[in-house]
């Protein structure tokens, strides 16, 4: 059970950052996961008054405020234009609408949870995070950093003509995923590049980049070989939801399906 000494809703980011430097302070997102933990928090910092709850289409990037809810992301037309149904797919299995009206993208990304669908999806995209003190860095760099006392302000997705697919497997609806995979492909510096992100392994999502020129008429066997190779380059673990071997098999299947879907649509 969590106990909280003080609740503070800062009026500026500077104030929030200063408050968060104390060891026993914590920034709250939607409080969905934090509330379930055992912790004594001296000061909880609520960022909801700082205007971080907007999704802005800035032309070449989409900037998602850290306090945007998962429901906002699910319903965002700009993200749908960029990623198709992939972003909605990555959040629509997360409990229910009430939960997604409350859980924030900042909480999901900052937490770098092993079960996170959101992290798995955004990691494969051309995504950056904006930190109050640490500036703007790639999500792939942020995901491997140790948690510190910085504050996540926004998630920035660079627009490009990339194809994106997301899929996950769950034992029951609304449960954590047994495995989550996203595949993105597009031209990067003149070369066809494939990005694979696999989460819920059950470790946090990891990213794999491959420069593969796959012909549009690639056979099923050829695609299966690529998927097998991609899936084999991640490490997997076992827990009550599945063994490492089972997870690797599922990852291979999902990656193959996603690659097939992208190739069928045309790049």
């Amino acid at each position, binding site marked *: 059970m*969590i*106990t*909280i*000494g*003080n*609740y503070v*809703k800062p009026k500026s980011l500077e104030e929030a950052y200063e408050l968060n430097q104390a060891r026993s302070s914590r920034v*709250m997102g*939607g*409080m*969905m996961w934090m*509330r*379930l933990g055992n912790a004594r928090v001296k000061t*909880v910092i*609520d960022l*909801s008054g700082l205007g971080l709850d907007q999704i802005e289409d800035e032309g070449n990037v989409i900037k998602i405020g850290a306090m945007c809810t998962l*429901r906002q992301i699910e319903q965002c037309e700009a993200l749908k234009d960029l990623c198709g149904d992939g972003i909605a797919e990555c959040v*629509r299995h997360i*409990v*229910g*609408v*009430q*939960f997604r*009206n*409350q859980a924030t993208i900042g909480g999901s990304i900052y937490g770098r949870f092993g079960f996170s669908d959101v992290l798995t999806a955004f990691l494969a995209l051309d995504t950056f995070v904006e930190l109050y003190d640490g500036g703007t860095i790639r999500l792939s760099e942020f995901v491997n950093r140790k948690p510190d006392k910085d504050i996540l302000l926004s998630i920035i997705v660079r627009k490009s003509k990339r194809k994106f697919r997301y899929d996950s497997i769950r034992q029951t*609806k*609304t449960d954590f995923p047994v495995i989550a995979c996203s595949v993105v492909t597009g031209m990067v510096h003149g070369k066809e590049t494939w990005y694979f992100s696999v989460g819920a392994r059950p470790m946090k999502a990891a990213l794999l980049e491959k420069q593969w020129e796959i012909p549009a008429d690639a056979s099923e066997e050829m695609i299966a070989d690529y998927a097998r190779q991609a899936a084999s380059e991640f490490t997997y673990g076992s827990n009550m939801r599945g063994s490492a071997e089972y997870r690797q098999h599922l990852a291979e299947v999902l990656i193959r399906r996603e690659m097939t879907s992208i190739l069928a649509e045309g790049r």
Partner: protein
Amino acid sequence: MEIQFTLNKKQVTAEVGADTVLLGVLRDLGCKSVKCGCETTNCGLCTVWIDGKSRLSCSVLAAGIDGHEVTTLEGVEEEAAEFGRFLAAEGGEQCGFCSPGFIMNVLAMKRELDDPDLEEIKEYLAGNLCRCTGYMSQLRAIQKYMTLQNENSGKEAQV
């Protein structure tokens, strides 16, 4: 700390701790429809609307509600009773423990989705668990209720 918020269109004041959750505050203020089920954000029993959006009051810090608008089943009693009749007619109320949270989310869905199909209804209500009905009677009730709502709004549009 003292918070002020609008509860079912009335201004209220409450004294809360930093880690007090909204659910307890609402029950103390007389809104007994709001129930505590799982306390882990999975069952939907504690569903209320905050600024018009359905949320889980077991996981909302009461301190953060200062200045906001909260609606519970008591604030939409007539509408809830109307849907409740459909629920009862289909045998979808059974023990009734999950009904308040479930009804709040159905009414939120009615406001948000225009003529949802069965899959959309199931997805919207995935966060409301019921251990009696197996959901089929509830889904029948929702579909009949939504059909009537659409017919009524069609008639209003024609007038």
